[in-house]
């Protein structure tokens, strides 16, 4: 087990700069998730750690060794691929044993390790089968088994759950979490699914266009997104945004647009002082909106026109129009409302976010 260090990592393809100055310290036993939309450089970063892509510039350390020039087999890593990459002509047992055979382990030791891994993953009864005789979930387990038997310093996961159906994905997610608790091996996990990222990661790295946008534990990303991209990417349904301008009225700072006139709470206002008179983007999560009641400050309420009602059982999502902007509000299932109704919504002032209109950086 070991820490992994990325220093100013860059990857250039002929005309494409895929990974830009990525620096990251992954602690021993930590589970770090790289997340972002497709083409954000997360998989390329993972493949550079694995040694499957050459590094254009920068450094990768596994343990205390610079591995830039080391071939994959000498990096003491194991990787789980999106399409499992099981050897189709080998049995499950041989698939799992292959890495150990290549490393010239004793026959008894191989058998012992394969058995332990098969026990952990519950695939003892499948050992004699060929990959094509297995279901997607079983194949995924075998791919995990192949990684476990090697007992490597680092596990690398490249969207391992994306080929599974939704239900199985949730189940495997939980199992992966348990597996990591049990083995404690340092893990780097790539996904485009923010729910996977939030549930699995000790820390999450959000990437876009080759840049790291923010690194933090899941709640940090949720509560204090560093910019508008992270704010919109983390959380489901996504954060609501509305273009506003700031107006000063006596001692209070107001965020104003055609449908909103929101009093900015004092602590946030203090941070925004320099921005009075300038444009910004207001952000508020659907779960931080509720139907206005008598206790709500007038400065935190606004009128909204209900356009769509999505009943999810545990909650209702209201798609509403606020002035020119569309928003989503998550309200309790007991709320009774109809399409085309005009309702009053209130926001939780502590949960307001503001982003610079141009740079999109959190204010």
């Amino acid at each position, binding site marked *: 087990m070991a820490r992994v260090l990325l220093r100013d990592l860059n990857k250039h393809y002929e005309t494409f700069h895929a990974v830009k100055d990525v620096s990251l310290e992954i602690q021993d036993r930590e589970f770090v998730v790289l997340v972002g939309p497709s083409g954000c450089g997360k998989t390329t970063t993972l493949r550079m750690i*694995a*040694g*499957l892509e050459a590094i254009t510039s920068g450094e990768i350390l596994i343990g205390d060794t610079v591995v830039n020039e080391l*071939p*994959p*087999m000498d990096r003491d*890593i*194991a*990787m789980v*691929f999106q*399409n499992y*990459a*099981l*050897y*189709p*002509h080998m049995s499950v047992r041989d698939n799992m044993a*292959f*890495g150990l055979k*290549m*490393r010239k382990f004793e026959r008894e030791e191989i058998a012992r390790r394969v058995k332990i891994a098969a026990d952990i993953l519950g695939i003892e009864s499948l050992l004699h089968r*060929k990959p094509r005789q297995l279901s997607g979930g079983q194949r995924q387990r075998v791919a995990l088994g*192949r990684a476990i038997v*090697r007992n490597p310093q680092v596990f690398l996961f490249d969207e391992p759950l994306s080929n599974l159906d939704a239900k199985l994905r949730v189940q495997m997610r939980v199992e992966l979490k348990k597996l990591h608790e049990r083995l404690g091996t340092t893990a780097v996990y790539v996904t485009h699914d923010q729910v996977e990222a939030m549930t699995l990661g000790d820390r999450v790295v959000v990437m876009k266009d080759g840049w790291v946008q923010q690194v933090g534990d899941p709640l940090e990303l949720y509560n204090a997104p560093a910019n508008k991209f992270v704010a919109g990417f983390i959380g489901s349904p996504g954060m609501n945004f509305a273009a506003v301008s700031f107006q000063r009225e006596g001692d209070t700072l107001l965020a104003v647009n055609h449908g909103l006139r929101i009093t900015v709470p004092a602590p946030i206002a203090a941070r925004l002082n320099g921005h009075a008179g300038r444009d910004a983007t207001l952000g508020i999560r659907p779960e931080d909106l509720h139907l206005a009641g008598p206790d709500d400050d007038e400065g935190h309420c606004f009128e909204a026109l209900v356009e769509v009602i999505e009943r999810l059982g545990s909650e209702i999502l209201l798609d509403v129009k606020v002035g020119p902007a569309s928003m989503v509000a998550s309200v309790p299932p007991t709320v009774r409302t109809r399409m085309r109704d005009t309702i009053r919504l209130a926001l939780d002032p502590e949960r307001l976010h503001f982003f610079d209109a141009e740079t999109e950086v959190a204010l």
Partner: protein
Amino acid sequence: MATTTEAATGTPRTRTRLLEDERWLAFFLLMPTIVLLALFIAYPFMKGILLSVTNTRVGVPGEFVGLAIFEKVWNDGIFREAAWNTIYYTAVTTVFKLALGLWLALLLNRHFRGKAFIRAFILLPFIIPTVLSTFAWKWMFDPTFSVLNWLLREIGVIDQRINWLGDPDLAMGCIIAVNVWRGVPFFAITLLAGLQTISPELHEAAAIDGANARQRFLYVTWPLLLPVTMVVVLFSVIQTFADFQLVYVLTEGGPANATHLFATYAYQIGVRTGLLSEGAAISLAMFPVLFLVVIFQLLYIRRVETR
């Protein structure tokens, strides 16, 4: 009115009903193939067998003589030489074609500039009609005008002209070389297609698992390529075993029968000499060998595929 309609549509209806019966439909659909196969494969094959048990010559109808012709052919020294030549020729060329074709396929499977162009270019020897390219080779092997001799003399390897096709050993080497030149593209392109069905992820997984390039080939590429390889080898063995044009153009079986194959010798005896029965018997001698080869390889392919 109703009766008129019925009468008018009567015939098409019966026809449609006949085609809706699957057995009739199957028969109709198979008809063209059956006719073609019967006319061009089954009839000549049967005719060949009939010829081989008579003593027919050109202009002489001949009578039934049992297996006498086969016995005569069996005791013919040139036939034995042709049989040995055919086996030798097939074995050596297949080994070379497979080795070179696989090597080329592995190279072509990499990423490089102008990949598509090179891949198309590689096929040229296979696309040019064999007779044309073989005539070009014949010029290159010509004792007087040979460009090979000129080249070897210029770089100082030889000082005497080599009579490529006049020397029995060299002549066999020459037809083998030309066959390999012509056959490698087919191997290369087919094996390349096979290689491309192997996911690159498997090689990456193997690389991470600790397999070096040689082990990745041995444990991943080769086993997964084997079914395709067997099919290519099967086709190649059949074609090479029954090869005719190449030898006919280059040496006509000479010098001193050193390069006669089954097909050229059968032609020599059956058509040139007019001993139709013996020609047929020689041709048929190929049949059991090829039949066994096909059976063996098909069984093998099935075993690999169900594995």
